[in-house]
């Protein structure tokens, strides 16, 4: 896996900075970079959001389609994740060659774990008729540019896109023979919204030296041996945690990192929800920024 090259002197500089809670770009250890969120950016999806975090940029589009519920859980809909990249070299050097596929699968596997469960999202509301029809939400993640901390950016974008998702309302009509027919309402404004309150955000904590940081840039990541991914709901409940990277973490620092993650994650939700609601209330008057900024 190709990464950025960091010289020994640079490494030392970064390590020493972090030790003093002062990172290269002036942040503290638990600070995020500047984050921008915009929803409803792709008109032919049912919900979409674009998130930039420093130089990292991801786009998430959600398409709702009617499918068959999974056999074991007849009364729930489900989510499908696909991670793709814009132009591989532009997004992240890690995506060069076959590495892209691996990373894509790794990312989407994590996303399944984090989002596709009844605790994160009310999957029962996606059921149209038990055992026969349900909504399947296809979540397409497009990585536009990568400057570290993909997981956090993606999770914020997914939450925003789910918030933005409008699923057309359907009615099931039954004819005399018991055959079921799906009928659409002809009003495009007649649609169902998802409750995203419990949707978690992912916080990635990078162990650098003896300390850990959130929202590591690519340079910082190059100095780290292992990181911990945890997903945190707005109540501070951890729904999932995972260790990535080659190095090992000692139990003590894991506990510290989880505590820090909880704190950071919990604080991430309220401003995000506030922002989304604000944007929503602007309605059609909102000037769209899109991709030309």
């Amino acid at each position, binding site marked *: 896996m190709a990464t950025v090259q960091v010289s020994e002197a640079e490494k030392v500089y970064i390590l020493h900075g972090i030790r003093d809670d002062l990172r290269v770009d002036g942040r503290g250890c638990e600070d995020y970079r500047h984050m921008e969120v915009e929803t409803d950016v792709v*008109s*032919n*999806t*049912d919900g979409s959001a674009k998130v930039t975090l420093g130089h990292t940029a991801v786009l998430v589009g959600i*398409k*709702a*389609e*009617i499918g068959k519920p999974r056999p074991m859980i007849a009364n729930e809909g489900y989510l499908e994740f696909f991670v793709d990249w814009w132009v591989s070299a532009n997004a992240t050097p890690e995506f060069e060659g076959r590495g892209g596929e691996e990373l894509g699968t790794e990312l989407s596997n994590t996303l399944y774990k984090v989002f596709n469960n009844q605790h994160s999202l009310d999957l029962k509301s996606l059921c149209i008729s038990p055992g026969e029809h349900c909504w399947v939400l296809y979540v397409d993640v497009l990585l536009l540019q990568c400057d570290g901390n993909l997981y956090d950016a993606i999770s914020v974008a997914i939450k925003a896109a789910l918030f933005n998702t409008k699923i*057309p309302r*359907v009615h099931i009509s039954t*004819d*005399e*023979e018991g055959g079921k027919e*799906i009928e*659409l309402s*002809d*009003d*495009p*404004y007649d649609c169902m919204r998802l409750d995203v309150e419990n949707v978690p955000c992912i916080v990635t904590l990078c162990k650098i030296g003896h300390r850990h940081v959130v929202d590591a840039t690519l340079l910082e990541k190059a100095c780290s041996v292992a990181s911990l991914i945890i997903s945190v709901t707005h109540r501070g409940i951890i729904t999932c945690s995972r260790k990535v990277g080659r190095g090992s973490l000692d139990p003590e620092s894991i506990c510290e990192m989880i505590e820090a993650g909880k704190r950071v994650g919990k604080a991430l939700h309220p401003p995000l929800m506030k922002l989304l609601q604000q944007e929503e209330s602007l309605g*059609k008057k909102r000037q769209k920024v899109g991709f030309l900024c």
Partner: protein
Amino acid sequence: MLKSKTFVKKTRSGGVMKVVREHYLRDDIWCGSEVCTECKQDSTVLQKDACIESSLCPYPHYLVPDTNVVLHQIDVLEDPVIRNVIILQTVLQEVRHRSAPVYKRLKDIIHEQGRHFYTFTNEHHRETFIEREPGESANDRNDRAIRVAAKWYSQHLKTPESGPDGLKVVLLTNDQSNKLKAEETGLAVYKFDEYIKSLTGNPELVDCLALSNDDKNEITSSKVLFPEHLPLSKVQAGIKSGSFLQGTFRASRDNYLEATVFVQGEGEDSTEVLIQGLQNLNRAVHQDVVAVQLLPKNQWVAPSSVVLQDDGAAKDDNVDEDEEEKVLTGPLTETARRATGKVVGIIKRNWRPFCGMLNVSQIKESTRHLFTPADRRIPRIRIETRQASTLAGQRIMVAIDGWPKDSRYPNGHFVRSLGGAGEKDTEEEVLLLEHDVPHQVFSQAVLSFLPKTPWSITPEDMAQRQDLRHLTVCSVDPPGCTDIDDALHCRELENGKLEVGVHIADVSHFIRPGNALDKEAANRGTTVYLCGKRIDMVPELLSSNLCSLRSNVERFAFSCIWEMNHKAEILKTRFTKSVINSKASLTYAEAQMRIDDANKNDDITKSLRGLNKLAKILKRKRIENGALTLSSLEVRFHIDSETHDPIDLQTKELMETNSMVEEFMLLANISVAQKIYDEFPESALLRKHPAPPPSNYDILIKAAKSKNVMIHTDSAKALADSLDVAKVDGFQYFNTLLRILATRCMMQAVYFCSGMDSDFHHYGLASPIYTHFTSPIRRYADIIVHRLLAVAIGADSTYPDLMDKHKQSALCNNLNYRHKMSQYAQRASVAFHTQLFFKTRGIINEEGFVLFVRKNAIIVLIPKFGLEGTVFFNSKDKASPSLVFDEEGPSLKVEQHTFHIFDQVKVTISLDDSNIQHQKIRMALTEPVIPGVSVPAPEAEPQAKKQKLDR
């Protein structure tokens, strides 16, 4: 500026798809008004002084109709009085979506320069485009778009110089809530009927108004006469589950209480469902697509063979139907019962404007009258008019607006008058309209594709074609023919063999695929020949000049040239595009005279003799193969050159030369059919004549049996042979009558695409494959065959539609329909001229033969005039004689006398114009004499009258 339109739709697989379309708004859409100084338009459509005498709007104004006004009141909008109308794009799109015929009519009006109709693309105009609001239905949004556009116009036209009496915009709508909302925004808005009634200069327009929903209620009584139609969703569910059947409703010509519904099944598996009685017919009108439910088997009935016309006085809605319907029920034999059903819902109405006449109401002041359509399969229509006295005695057109369940008759409105009944032009117009024959003059767009005149052959043309100008080609046609599409030649080759050429006008050279001219010809399908009138398929420049193979001019031809031996066996066949120069255009009689005249020995005559000799051999071979010679009486009218009235009529006479030309045409058609099928097995356009089902021959066999003649119908050959030997001593006409009957047993020959069918056989001609190649001037099928053949021999390039079997197949359907209709129109024209002929003749006593026997009537054929008529034995005003009908004979016993098929009778023929609705030939029996039934033979014809006519 970019906007996007978003909507969700259901996919075929049951999923849901979100569709997003980009929508661009512009600021360079002009208003189209002469008054406007702001818009940078090159030309204007709407006039400055848009004045119409209206008591509601005394100021000059433009009209903005909403969608429903256009859809329902198109008849009024078509009136030339209505000018300066703004058709919004929103309206145009909705109309297009909801009714294709109305859309076409609207487009026609818009294209008419003098009408000043302007299409304003409000949906793309920056200031008039609106987006759908949450909670707003699509219709509400469109109404709002119309209001916004109207508002925009009224502000836009308010120029300083226009002043207070300046141009205004008047919105026309029949929707109450829309009207209110428009008034709130300060627009001038009226209901359509309000506005039309205010047109003081044109009171007659009021009659054209279609009835709106609230008007309809006044007319009808409260009693519910018909069962409710099921909603479409239920009908569709029923059809899916098989409890209902979907089919085309075909009313019976003879009996207004009976109809059949033709249910198209998989492949050949089609059925017919019988419907009897007003309740079961349930307001379906001829040609509607309906859903029927089958009745339980014990209620199945047999089709009645009574002739029943709904010709009583205007019946009240509360008349007891039992009385009307009891005539239907007769003794039922189990075998005669057929699948019977009732109409439960209408899937698609197929209403068009109908021609007919007004039954003026007996109450003088009444404005409601019944209208009787010319087509007996269409029910009578109730219309409202104030000009009944003017319209009585005229042929008029009426459109149906609706048929409420508590009304005996459908409600409609007056469309236009065609002229006085019985007048030649009017009647011709009626029969063209009734048979859906496109007969408008060719549009400018069509004419623009004609070659420039004077036309001449260029050297490039010559290079691509074989020069056959040196050949002694001549054409043989009926007298007065100007669209000559075939010419022939025959010459002896040096090797002793004969070379025979059939040269067909090369119409496909002039009509290129896909252009307006081609589309028009494809739609018309065929030239229609009426008595003394021809409705051309292609413009006259082509049909009578450039394509017509006239003598002594150079013309393009598509030639089929055979090398034959003297036994008329084909040795070589060759097709080529050519240039010919016909040496003579002869009539059949002239050609016959040349052949018979032993003194003539010029090239043309020699060529004709060679052809004639070969034709005889060909004909013999064909008959040996089992081709049928059938017979139908064709009449020719001698038309007075000044009055254009028929002064005499005679049945067509067939000469040897007729069959000579026919023989070679058949040969050319078969050769070409083989060639194009070999080359394009999937997309060749062919013609087939299916063998009739054996039951069709029942009547023929029964009829022949009554004269002790056996007819074998196992094969075409057997039929042809047994017809040949069928003779009865002392009854010369018997054989012809049999052949006429046999013709009636046949199926209709049809065009089809070879890729869509497997049965190619032509029964009548006993040919395994057949097509039409020889008359491209008057048949569109031949043009397609020409194109196929041209591609096959590499003389022309192909195009996608030519090879698309589905498109070909759709084209064939249209051609078959047009051919059928043109035949009907032709027959109707002959019938009308026969009436004109008898009008001046008084009562004539003539000999005839019984052709069919019905329950209450016999159908008599008068060979002298080729005329068929019905002699009724029961009439309303007197007691009917005792009638005993025997189905097996079939025979009908009237009092003491029994009628069989082929009985010789004498009848009087007269024109019955007492009933101005339908003038018809009336026949009454004079011989055999049956007391109380037959009428006395008329005196010898008044001599004076006859002399005057003969002049």
